[in-house]
């Protein structure tokens, strides 16, 4: 194995990992607040078309990312209004949000089929970005750096800041958080909108970098893998980063195994692996004592302060 080969393989892994890492980072914050939003796929799809359409129309990719962020947050806000203000069931609303995202993105996107845009390139100078070695660090799209910084920032926020402590308190015990005087609903609104915004960015990664075009349902189920990743990570940012890259390595391994003629397992086994591993890890973590790595206690449950 040559250095070039390893670097190329790493570049592939980093590319396929990034949108999953992004979407999962957003969902991590949502779930930390005690809300489960199964509409990740839908919000990502809204981001794919928003990012693509705006970049195509204005020629400004940064504006595209901004609008994708806002669009993802807007989609999440629909969910938040239904779930947090109107007390609708989180699971059903999340699934409906996925249907909504697929429909809306397809409707708007029908005007953008068969069009290509220039991919968003590395923000670093060409000398670094195209260098045969240094490109492993500098040769990626801005999404890659953003995703890593974001998940580190989220880890710091959750564990080291007072606001993060409040977020966790809301997710672990909303009633006591409420009784101390924290605005449980407002905090959850913020978390859900944040998760949607990041899912929107993750979607834009698909239509602006990975394959700079738009096509119906181009996220192809990555939203569900992101949900699995949050579980796999045991709701911890550090493990989320490691887990995302582990998933990415698994996906790349499948492709390398096939391309070199050594499948080892049927390809379906590779594809099922992230989900199986997520469940096994969840079982191992959950059977231990202590709180570490377990789901937020209020996850998915409605907040009923006076009932």
């Amino acid at each position: 194995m040559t250095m070039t080969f390893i670097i190329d393989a790493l570049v592939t892994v980093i590319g396929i990992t990034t949108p999953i890492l992004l979407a999962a980072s957003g969902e991590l914050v949502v779930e930390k607040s005690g809300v489960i939003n199964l509409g990740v796929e839908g919000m990502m799809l809204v981001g794919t078309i928003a990012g693509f359409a705006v970049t195509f129309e204005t020629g400004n990719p940064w504006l595209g990312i901004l609008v994708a962020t806002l669009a993802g947050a807007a989609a999440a806000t629909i969910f938040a209004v239904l779930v947090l203000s109107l007390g609708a069931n989180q699971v059903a609303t999340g699934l409906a949000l996925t249907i909504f995202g697929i429909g809306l993105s397809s409707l708007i996107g029908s005007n953008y089929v068969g069009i290509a845009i220039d991919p968003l390139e590395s923000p670093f100078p060409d000398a670094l970005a195209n260098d045969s070695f240094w490109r492993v660090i500098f040769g990626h799209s801005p999404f890659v750096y953003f995703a890593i910084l974001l998940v580190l920032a989220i880890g710091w926020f959750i564990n080291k800041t007072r606001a993060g402590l409040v977020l966790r308190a809301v997710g672990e015990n909303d009633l006591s958080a409420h009784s101390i005087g924290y605005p449980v609903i407002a905090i959850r609104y913020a978390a859900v909108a944040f998760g949607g915004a990041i899912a929107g960015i993750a979607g834009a990664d698909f239509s602006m970098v990975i394959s700079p075009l738009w096509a119906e349902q181009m996220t192809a189920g990555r939203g569900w893998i992101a949900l699995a990743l949050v579980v796999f990570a045991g709701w911890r940012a550090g493990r989320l980063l490691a887990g995302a890259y582990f998933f990415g390595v698994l996906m790349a391994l499948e492709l390398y195994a096939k391309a070199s003629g050594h499948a080892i397992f049927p390809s379906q086994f590779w594809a099922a692996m992230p989900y199986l591993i997520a469940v096994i890890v969840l079982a191992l973590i959950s059977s231990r004592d202590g709180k570490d790595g377990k789901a937020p206690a209020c996850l998915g449950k409605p907040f009923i302060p006076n009932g």
Partner: protein
Amino acid sequence: MTKFTRRDFVKAVGAASALPLLGASAQAAEPFKVGFIFLGPVGDYGWTWAHDKGRREMEAALGGAVKTTYVENVKEDASAIPILRDLARQGNKLIFATSFGYMDQVLEVAKEFPDVKFEHCTGFKRAANVSTYNSRFHEGRAVTGTIAGKVSKSGVIGYLGSFKIPEVVMGVNAFTLAAQAVNPKIQTKLVMIDSWFDPAKETAATETLANLGCDVIATHTDSPAPLQFCQKKGIFGFGQGADMSKFAPKAHLTAIEDIWGPHYTARVKAAIAGTWKSEDFWDGIKEGAVKVSAYNASLAKDAQDAANKVIEGYKAGSYDVFTGPIYDQSGALKVKEGQKMGLGDLATIDWYVKGIQSA
């Protein structure tokens, strides 16, 4: 295609009767109604898009004599049955079902509507009122394989497949055999991604193949994403189903285009004239069902010539990429020297030729 409201219907009938009609038998005041069901959205820029283009060409060719209706995103499950039934009940006299997974559903509904004619694309079951039709896409792959064999410097070519179904298997076989005909050392690395459409996985698989030394990468999946990657990487690829050169002006050597218009036009005409019979169509380059797009300007003259020779050979009936000797991956002789594989064998093929590396 217009919106189908009762008002429009009256207008359409009026317009049709005012137009000079095509053919002697098309004297009915009502246009002949033709239905289509599509697997994907008409805007997928791939399989469904090509069928819809064929539908529009047929409509244009026959003018007011036909009226078409289509339903897109029809799942290959039991829900295709009511949709087919609806189309039949709405007075569509000829219905095209454009994906393999509609096979049983078409046969079931065809039993209920003996007066309605059905055509099922890529299937293998027929009935008195059910025809099948397909294209010899592999002829196009023999052309792109020839070009790949000429262009590849590394001698290692990548091939992205969807599923191990006969159409994909015969495609990669035709591609590889043709490439080996111009460069016997050619090796093809095959990756099946278990999906027809997943741009992110297609990109990652293309990247993987490039990393393993492939400098030309062909695809049998539906999105232009692999081409976009080839463009970025400075390697080459081909369009699939349609000319995709605008996605990758430098990397796009040529494309295999699916042309369904002539078949649709001919069959609708036959149905109007009352000469429609249950048949099995398998058209190729010769019949104009498979077309090779304009070559990239950067493509060397000798590669263009070699490709043109294959095209001319198919047109004249003098060339067939599946002419023996053909060996499978293990080196066993599958087709003897001088023999040709029949369409019947190709339709069920599940082995790869020598030189294909697959998992």
